[in-house]
Structure formats: structure tokens, C-alpha cells
């Protein structure tokens, strides 16, 4: 009986010491690891950059991250490395369930992130600011991004909205294995904010494998091939890469010479630079609006 009582007392003591639900106990994060490039950019933009101690193997921006340790990424996070760097907050992708469990077992704070729409960029920035103790700066940044996106929308308001196929991957020198933005996600939202209409707006997926038949049947007026860097199509190959579209002569974009490459990492990373990315798309779709 006495043993039971002791155990019960111990349990109550533990419960009293444990912080309440809701996370209000979280102080500002001092050592942050980000496994998501978009969130890494957000951390730097809200002024938490000096507390980032490691990033993912895909991180390139801002340039400070190049000097930081790389601790794997989506499919290959190096848990041992992460733990040895003694972080108090780890940003992970929402699907990394095993990693989340391991980090929770180690008692580390976790910030869950998933790619979603354009509106989620600013929502994420605000939530991130709350977590890292940079709420005020995060709110300011989010407000600026929202204002910037409004400005782009205003620029292209009233312009005819071309039916656009937004391609973000395919085989070299062939129209095979072609992936385009579906009707949800940040690429679709950026295209829409930039004054275009997505030809795959009705497909509620972030990525669509676009068959030849669908491309011809949907008759896009503009085809934008977006890639993060211009090394996707080395300059010597660009004419040949444009030429592969020539076979689909009935597609208005092909007939009117409106197949365009846009090499810009700000378009494919849904971070704080989305305004610049959206503007880059808008400039391509509506050059006259920016004269």
C-alpha cells in the first residue's frame, strides 16, 4: 500500500512539473536545424538565421547556409548527426514520421511543415515566428509578402488571363515523363496570382503527369517550363529543347511561339521570396504590365 502511495505521489509530482498542453512553455529556440529549404529561407528572413546550426543537403539559399553542416533531407535524415548538434528545434517535413518519433523521444522540439498553397507560406512564417521567438518580425514579413502578392495581382488585373501549362519536369529532348502543376499547391496559386489560368486547374493534385493527349486537348496559350536553375537545360541545348514542342503545332502556345523557359529558384521554393517568384511569372505572362 505504501509503495502504491509513493508511486502515486511521484506520478503527481511529475505531472505538476510537466508543462501544460499548448506549448506556451516554449522559449525562443536557440539552436535550430531545418530539413526544409523553404523553411530555412523563412528562418533567415525573420531574423533567426544566426541560430540555425544545420540545414538539409538540398539547401542553397541564403549563401550563409553553404557553410553549415548538412544533415540529410527528406528521405535520408541523419538522426545521429542531428542529435549530436544538440538542437532545441528541428524543422521536418510532415511525412517524416519516423524522424518525428525519434526526435520526440529525445525530447526535442519539432516544427512540422508541408508544402501547400501560397496562402500557407505566410501562415507558416507566422507560426514559425511564434515557435522561434521572432513573432514580431515574422508578422511584419508575412504582412510584406501579402502586400507584395497583392501588388502583383493589381498589376495584372484586367489583363486577359492566358490558359497556361506550367511544366516543372520532363525528360531531356522529349515530351515524355512530363510533370505539370495541377490545380492546387503553391505553383498553381503563383500562376493564378501572376495573371494566368492553369490548364489543369480542374485536377486537384499538386503534380499531374501530363499526357500528350491532354496537352493537345487542353490547348494551352502559354507553356512555361520552370526550373530552379539554368543548368536544367544547358544553354547549348535550349533551341533543341524548345524544338521538341514543335511537333504539337495545333497547341496555340506552340503555334504562337509562347513556349518559354523560366529558370528561377524563387518560383519552385515556397519561401519568403515567393513575391519575387510570382512577379517573375507575371513578367513572363504579361511583359507589357511591367513596362
Amino acid at each position, binding site marked *: 500500500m505504501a509503495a502504491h502511495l509513493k508511486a502515486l505521489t511521484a506520478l503527481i509530482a511529475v505531472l505538476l512539473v510537466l508543462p501544460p498542453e499548448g506549448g506556451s512553455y516554449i522559449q525562443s529556440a536557440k539552436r535550430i536545424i531545418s530539413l526544409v529549404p523553404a523553411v530555412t529561407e523563412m528562418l533567415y528572413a525573420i531574423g533567426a538565421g544566426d541560430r540555425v546550426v544545420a540545414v538539409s543537403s538540398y539547401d542553397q539559399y541564403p549563401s550563409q547556409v553553404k557553410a553549415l553542416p548538412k544533415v540529410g533531407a527528406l528521405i535520408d535524415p541523419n538522426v545521429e548527426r542531428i542529435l549530436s548538434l544538440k538542437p532545441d528545434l528541428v524543422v521536418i517535413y510532415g511525412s517524416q514520421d519516423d524522424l518525428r518519433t525519434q526526435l520526440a523521444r529525445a525530447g526535442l522540439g519539432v516544427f512540422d511543415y508541408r508544402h501547400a498553397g501560397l496562402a500557407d507560406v505566410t501562415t507558416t512564417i507566422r507560426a514559425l515566428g511564434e515557435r522561434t521567438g521572432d513573432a514580431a518580425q515574422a508578422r511584419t514579413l508575412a504582412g510584406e509578402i501579402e502586400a507584395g502578392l497583392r501588388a502583383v495581382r493589381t498589376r495584372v488585373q484586367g489583363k486577359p488571363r492566358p490558359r497556361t501549362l506550367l511544366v516543372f519536369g520532363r525528360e531531356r529532348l522529349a515530351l515524355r515523363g512530363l*510533370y505539370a502543376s495541377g490545380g492546387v499547391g503553391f505553383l498553381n496559386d503563383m500562376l493564378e496570382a501572376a495573371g494566368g489560368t492553369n490548364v489543369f486547374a480542374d485536377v486537384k493534385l499538386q503534380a499531374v503527369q501530363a499526357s500528350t493527349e491532354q496537352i493537345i*486537348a487542353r490547348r494551352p496559350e502559354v507553356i512555361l517550363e520552370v526550373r530552379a536553375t539554368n543548368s536544367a537545360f544547358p544553354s547549348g541545348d535550349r533551341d533543341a529543347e524548345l524544338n521538341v514542342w514543335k*511537333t504539337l*503545332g495545333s497547341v496555340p502556345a506552340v503555334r504562337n511561339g509562347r513556349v518559354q523557359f523560366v529558370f528561377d529558384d524563387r518560383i519552385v521554393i515556397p519561401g519568403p521570396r515567393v513575391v519575387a517568384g510570382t512577379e517573375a511569372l507575371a513578367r513572363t505572362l504579361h511583359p507589357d504590365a511591367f513596362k
Partner: protein
Amino acid sequence: MSLKARFAKTVVAFGAMAAAAIVLGPLVGPTTVDFRRVFDMSTPFADNPDAQIFFIARLPRTLAGATVGALFAAAGVVFQGLLRNPLATPFTLGVSTGAALGAVLAITFNWSIGIAGLSAVPVAAFAGSLMAVAIVYALAQARHRGLSTTVLLLAGVTMNAFFSAMVLFVQYFASFADTYRTLRWLMGDLDVSSYQPLLAALPTTVVALAAFAWLARPLNLLSLGPDSAESRGLDVTSAQRVAFFSASLATGAAVSIGGPIGFVGIIVPHLVRLLVGPDHRIVLPASALFGAAFLVACDVVARTIMAPVELPVGIITALIGGPFFLWLLISKR
């Protein structure tokens, strides 16, 4: 019934099936096409979306399905006869994983070299399959006079595992988007969007099919066992060599067109044997024709069932093939 009559009857029946699939295949699709406009010669081809859908999207795709289906099915028959193992498939000896390694390298490292109007991925896939064939053959030859099918099988299965490991290793260097595209390639895709891949594979296809025609009788003899075949005057080693190389080339060509589409090479031969008996002189042509019809039909399902989204054709063949394979396994006496 004489062999000639049975041959004629089977080829007509299965040929009609293949012809029907090839004619009907392009008529079906996820979008509506006005067929009067398809053949309307008064509009230039480049301004005629209906004609472009029919002649650029659907027809080459249907022909690719027919070619790949015929090659996989016939190669399956030959491999099963050569290895005297009913569970052999065109992928058993590592040819397709060799091709996969080539394709994954081309996708991951963004190769742009093309040959004969082909893009890098099919070229690299075909080269990869040739490399696999050469290695497996060299291994099977190394310590035997002639060709040991046991060593061939062991070497093939081992190389299969080795190439799979290499594919995963290369994947490690790929970006997330490339990983996704690789995975998609491995599930098979017949949307070739031009006739170029078919023309490029034509010489290999013709050579392989001609070899298959010659192989029908030797495979019948081989099914009695190499010793009996030898005593009936068959040059076993050269027959095995022809079988190995022609079926491997056929597999390599088919994989370079459509990716490693599974199960065609095993379901079709077995279904055909159930219908027409074990004589290779009939099983081989019937399997090729039925394979063509089968894969064209599977691809029609793949591109329409969830339109406008496409399912990988390999998923359809696997959904039909998996249960069939199990049934085959347990019904075997």
C-alpha cells in the same frame, strides 16, 4: 487437325484480337475527338487538334503498346523454354534492371545525348540492357563449355539484385523530383508522343521476331531436356545462345520503349498455353499477338479509368497479373 491447320486457326484468331485492339485502341481516350475532323485533309495537320491527338498522341501510343506487349510476351515464352522454368519472365536474367540502371543514370545526371532521334533515357536504357546481357552471358560461359542454364539463371538473378542495388545507389544522388520521375519510369509508360522510339526499335524487333520464328522447333526439343534434344540432332548450345540473345534483345528494346512493364511476359504465355497447348510453334506467334492485344487493352484502361489523371500501365498489368501469378503458383501440380 494438322499442325498447319492449327497454326492457321490460332494465328487468325489471335491476329484478329491484336488487330481489333490496334484499330479500337486509338478510338478510345480521355478526351473527345471528332473523327470526321481527324481525317479532314482540308485543314493543315498542324492546325488540326483532333488529327494531332489521333496521330501524335493515340496512334503511336497504341503501336508502342502492341510492340512492347508482343516483345515481352514472346520473350517470356522463350525464357521459360530456355530455362525450363515456368516462372521465368523477361526480367529474370537482369536485362530490365540493367536497362533501369541506364535510365536512372540518364534521369539523375540530366544526360541529353540522343541517338537516332531518341532522347537520352531510352538510349541509356537500351545500352544498360546490352551491358547486362553481356555480363550475364560472360558469367554463364566462363567455366562451362557451352551454356549452363543453371549458371545462367544464378548469374542472371544475382546481376538482377546487383543492378537493383546500383539503381538505389544512383537514386541517392538524385533530387526529389528526379527520384519521382525515376519511380514513374519504373512503372512503365507508353506515351511515346512520336513514332521515333518505334522506328528506332524496329531493327531489333524484326531480328528478335525472326529468331523467335526459328526457335520454335528447338524450344520444343529443349523442353525434353538438353540430352534428349541433343540426341535428336539439335545443336543445344547454339539454340540456347540464340534464345538467350534474341529474347534479351527483345526485352531490351521493349524496355527502352515503355519501361519495365511487369507481368505481360508471364501471364500471356501461360494463358496462351492453357488455350492452345504447349507446342512452341503455336505458342510463340499466339503469345506475341495476344501480348500485343493485352497491353493495348491495359493501356486503354490506364489512360481512361481516372482521366484526366493517368495510371501507370504497369499498375494495371500488375493488378491483373499478381492474382493470376498466385493462381498459377498454387494450381501447379
